[in-house]
């Protein structure tokens, strides 16, 4: 309750400052919207379903793109971790590629796939694939060797060894990488949608700009923050907490 009160006070003050600044009319309302205008935009967006549709479209792309990069990243990461040659060569390439913002892939993606869903999926995958791959690679290396040996000793090999032993054993080590991958994918998706017009939250944001409707821009920004926060706070935190409980690790 105390925690809630502190949050309420903080956000109350923040909104109050915003309101006062807007009331002072230093900037015209189309540059600096009032909290009320933003709230109305939010309401209107949900009322005419445009926000719901945008969320649905964006989330679908996220789920598809993210699951693809998790599967690919795990395979790639394992391959790199278990092969000396690949580790030396591809390992370095992966790290250097990570410094490239994934939106840089968009021109190529448009050229290869056209103005299609595939192009945006490609950008999302490129955004998170490297994080997942690197996480899997380091996770595989950090994971105590004893689990793999114990698994083999008890008759697990090949895919069974990977699925029942190596994967769960490395999970605590790759979870932060999976989380980072999600965050990168989310950023890539929104930037992709902003540049390349086709439904989704990013496009809604740009539409606000085109219509000079800053209330809508800020409303969509809030949505993007909220969704990112909810996924991180609910999905990943829950997985993390469960893992810590199972493994007996002290809650961080």
């Amino acid at each position, binding site marked *: 309750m105390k925690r809630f009160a502190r949050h309420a006070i903080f956000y109350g003050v923040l909104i109050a400052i915003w309101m006062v600044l807007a009331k002072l009319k230093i900037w015209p309302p189309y540059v600096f919207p009032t909290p009320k205008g933003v709230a109305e935009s939010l309401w209107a967006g949900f009322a005419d379903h445009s926000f719901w549709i945008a969320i649905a479209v964006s989330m679908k792309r996220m789920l598809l793109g993210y699951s693809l990069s998790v599967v690919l990243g795990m395979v790639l990461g394992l391959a790199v971790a278990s092969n000396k040659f690949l580790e030396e060569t591809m390992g370095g390439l992966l790290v250097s590629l990570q410094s490239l913002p994934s939106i840089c892939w968009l021109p190529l993606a448009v050229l290869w796939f056209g103005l299609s869903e595939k192009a945006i999926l490609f950008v999302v995958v490129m955004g998170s694939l490297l994080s997942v791959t690197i996480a899997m690679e380091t996770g595989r290396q950090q994971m105590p060797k004893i689990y793999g040996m114990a698994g083999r*000793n*008890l*008759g697990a090999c090949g895919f069974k060894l990977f699925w029942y*032993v190596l994967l769960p054993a490395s999970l605590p080590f790759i979870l932060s990488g999976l989380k980072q991958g999600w965050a990168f994918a989310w950023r890539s998706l929104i930037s992709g949608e902003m540049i390349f017009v086709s439904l989704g939250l990013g496009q809604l944001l740009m539409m606000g700009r085109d219509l000079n409707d800053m209330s809508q821009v800020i409303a969509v920004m809030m949505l993007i923050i909220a969704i990112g926060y909810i996924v991180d706070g609910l999905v990943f935190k829950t997985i993390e907490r469960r893992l810590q409980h199972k493994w*007996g690790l002290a809650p961080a």
Partner: protein
Amino acid sequence: MTPNPAVQSSLARDDRRPVHSGSSRWKADAGLAILPLRHGGAHGVPKVSLKGISLSYKTNHGSRLLALDNINLKVKAGEFLCIVGPSGCGKSTLLHLIAGLQQASLGNVLIDDKIVQGTGTDRILIFQELGLFPWLTVGQNVEFGMKMKGLSKTERDERTQHYLRLVHLSQFKDSHTHQLSGGMRQRVALARALATEPDVLLMDEPFAALDAQTRDLLHDELERIWAETGRTIIFVTHNVREAVRLGDRVALMTFRPGRVKREYLIDLPRPRVLEDITVAKSAREILDDLREEINKSLEEEYGPKEVSA
């Protein structure tokens, strides 16, 4: 120590458990697996034999180090063999070789006179660090090997229950391993190994990290379980008393390269007690031989001058 053999006292304990009816049915159906195998097996064929096992590997300096040198050992079915030696003599490595987790440079491991390669559930190793899976419950850990073998769910459940009862951990089936004490974790590892029903149980200093009381208790338990299940056990330890307490035979290994220096037949009545004078006497004899090897290992570590004999 109670005058009763450990075997009987433990069976009496089991009888009082309400879930016993299920277990006895299981014993009747598939009980062969836990019948003593001690006097069974093909005539004269050792359960495990090591023929000319050598292992050498490249060190970081590029030179080759001979870790194990021409090891020859035979273990009868149902025998309890203890291997002792100074740390660094390669006794753990030897177990890894038998388990098939590592490959010997020379020589063969034979089970029932057949050369084995790679891992197999006929030989299960209990690691020094146990290697219990923290993401699984106690029951799931015990079940793991059977699941890999592809046994049906009902059979797995029955056997899991049976082996958990054997190590007195039935109530902890749904616990996670980190919630258990060190001694209990040892017993989970034992149950997990036994549940795959291996012919040979390989144990790598399993009780080294335990306090003395827990260790004594586990010695009794292991002796009882060995008597009940009739498994062949190869038990590695650096503790000579422990080896004499448990083993039918003790093999002493030399320090680098590891060779079998001598074998001792321990012909003391069971159940034995660690503090018993006869155990101490036998241990004394082995310890004198071992001390030589320990001095060698200390010389290598600290240089010859600082070692006082």
